[in-house]
């Protein structure tokens, strides 16, 4: 009877998940000594900024363009959204430089690196669609300039920067889902494989 239960897909998935990511690896109490460095702070700064982006984005979506253009509180939340994006990209680029300088794809961490790179690209698209969704002269200027570049690649048939509805839906639905999901996968992979050690400590590491 127990073997039948063990063979169920729910049991197999649970065992597989717990084997690959036991709870003490998912939420560890300690980190290796080399993690006590400022260079490891920029990843979590990026995630904190992403949290503020999502929160302010939800408020902007609830109240709409007229509110964020005309009210003092709307200006403030709109500015919070912009400046958290600035911090997000600032921290993410320093995080990228830090991980590149450590060759953070070592020790079976190539997918962690790739999910980070794809998250970066999705974030650039999210940032761009945000700029063209402001519903002001700035967004009109950016969209009319960008359309020529995108049309020259043939991409304009699928990605029309003058189509506000398409840009807004991409910005507030699809790209945030992609950015948050990819960030989640990225963090889970960091937990599974552990933080990449410095080069001098890597010789003792067993590649997973």
């Amino acid at each position, binding site marked *: 009877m127990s073997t039948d239960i063990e063979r169920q897909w729910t049991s197999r998935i649970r065992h597989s998940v717990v084997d690959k990511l036991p709870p003490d690896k998912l939420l560890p*109490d*300690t*980190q*290796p*000594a080399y*993690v*006590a*460095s*400022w*260079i490891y*702070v*920029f990843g979590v700064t990026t995630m904190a900024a992403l949290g503020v982006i999502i929160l302010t984005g939800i408020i902007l979506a609830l109240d709409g363009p007229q509110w964020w253009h*005309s009210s*003092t509180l709307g*200006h*403030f939340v709109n500015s919070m959204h912009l400046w958290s994006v*600035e911090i997000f990209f*600032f921290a993410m*680029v*320093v995080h990228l*430089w*830090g991980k590149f300088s450590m060759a953070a794809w070592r020790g079976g961490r190539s997918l962690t690196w790739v999910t980070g790179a794809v998250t970066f690209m999705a974030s650039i698209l999210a940032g761009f669609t945000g700029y063209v969704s402001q519903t002001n002269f700035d967004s009109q200027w950016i969209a009319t300039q960008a359309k020529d570049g995108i049309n020259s690649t043939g991409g304009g048939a699928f990605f029309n920067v003058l189509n506000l509805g398409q840009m807004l839906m991409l910005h507030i639905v699809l790209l945030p889902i992609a950015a948050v999901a990819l960030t989640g996968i990225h963090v889970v992979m960091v937990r599974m494989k552990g933080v990449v050690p410095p080069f001098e400590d890597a010789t003792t590491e067993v590649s997973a």
Partner: protein
Amino acid sequence: MAQGWGLGALINLDHYGHYIHWGVIQVSVGNFIVMVLMVASFLAALFAPFPGRRNRKGAK
């Protein structure tokens, strides 16, 4: 434009942008400052001492 008291920009940004021209490279002063700050943050993160590093008994 309506301005909330005390919430206005510390630096007056209500003017045309300033640009740096260096051969074929053209960059706005604002973007250049951000780039310099990113490089400075990266170098500081590599070399600045992390508080409490020597006393981390829990670290493996």
